[in-house]
């Protein structure tokens, strides 16, 4: 840290204790100002007894910066991201450059033509959990399309019971995970590329 140079008054007023006194003022975060009539440098300070607090002083809440609303935060991130505008790339919250050109099919779906949001690097767990959720939803949709049914976990007792009741009435199969797998297998098996590759005539 850059230390301020010792002002002349510290030597002139009390030469042996000047430096110590100056250090005390710096440590107390004293505010120095110049008296333009006399040219002297002054510092205001108040010495309080032990355990005495300043009247009217309240404990301050720790705050790194001004409190922002989510909208303001997004605006601030946009302003930060605006420092770099390259086609297919943008600056992230951490300052790295993210080249998103290979994900253009996804980026095009987002409303803003020129992205202004500065992406954040999330944790591995957050990322993979979201990915797994997407796969779950997709598989649920696909199996529903294929078999006209719905996949659900066997642990979901209410739905299993409801499906069993329906099965008893209508004679339909239980739409469980196993059922969804069987449906998918039946749908996919005939067009599995390995099978096509092995059964087609050689050139």
């Amino acid at each position, binding site marked *: 840290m850059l230390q301020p140079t010792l002002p002349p008054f510290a030597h002139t007023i009390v030469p042996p204790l000047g430096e110590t006194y100056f250090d005390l003022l710096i440590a107390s975060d004293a505010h120095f100002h110049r008296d333009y009539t006399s040219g002297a440098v002054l510092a205001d300070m108040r010495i309080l007894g032990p355990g005495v607090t300043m009247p009217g002083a309240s404990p301050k809440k720790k705050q790194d910066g001004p409190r922002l609303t989510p909208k303001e935060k997004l605006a601030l991130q946009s302003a930060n991201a605006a420092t770099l505008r390259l086609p297919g790339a943008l600056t992230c919250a951490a300052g790295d450059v993210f080249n998103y050109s290979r994900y253009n*099919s*996804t980026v095009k779906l987002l*409303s803003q033509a020129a992205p202004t949001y500065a992406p954040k690097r999330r944790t591995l767990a957050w*990322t993979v959990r979201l990915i797994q959720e997407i796969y779950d939803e997709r598989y649920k949709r696909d199996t529903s399309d294929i078999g006209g049914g719905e996949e659900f976990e066997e642990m979901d007792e209410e739905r299993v019971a409801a499906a069993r009741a329906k099965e008893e009435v209508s004679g339909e199969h239980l739409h469980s*995970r196993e059922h969804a797998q069987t449906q998918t297998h039946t749908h996919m098996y005939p067009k599995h590329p390995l099978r096509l590759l092995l059964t087609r005539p050689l050139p």
Partner: protein
Amino acid sequence: MFPIFVVDLFSKKYGLKSLVESTTWDLLYSCDCLRGMYADVEVFCRFLEMSYDADELLYYCYVRSLTQSVLNANFKTHWADAGRQNNPGNVGFDRRPPVLALNRRECNYIAQTIFIRNQGEEVESEKQMFSDFMGSVDGALADGAVDSSEFMKIAVERYFATRPGEHTQDAVGEDANEYANEGGAAPPLAPSRSEEAAAAAAAAVEEGGGEEEVAFTR
């Protein structure tokens, strides 16, 4: 199209346009940072960038569903608590739950479920597909087990590489010629059934026993 599905899903989940956009951007950026290190993220990125299409996606989800059944686990729930691993180094951005590994027997069971139907006159080709796939899996086994995400990645890669059409050897050969004409290096050939694997598969078929019978219990 998979990206449309993802953005639609986020729209339903989050509602607010700004939240949908920020989540999508965060997901894209995080995946891009992690894709080389984790098999499941790598595969997801390939779906997002449309290297793999809807057929591969359905196949991957199917294999994933089988894997969950065999492991008696739900991947989403598993990843919901990343701090379970009793390891002082398991902190920070890359904190993860314990690896869900498949042993060879379990891999065998899944592969049998995918490939073997034992119907009609296709038994031999089924066995060939099966042993071909298990050949790839054997290459990835370490201490008799393979990470489930790596197993699923192998499955979808094999599926993609053997798809007839643009990804077959002929098409790749044409690409290689184009590269050669431009003075560049030839792109790597798509992985295909190697002669060794084919010979091993044929030998297994000749022996009549094929692969071991699996009476699977877990």
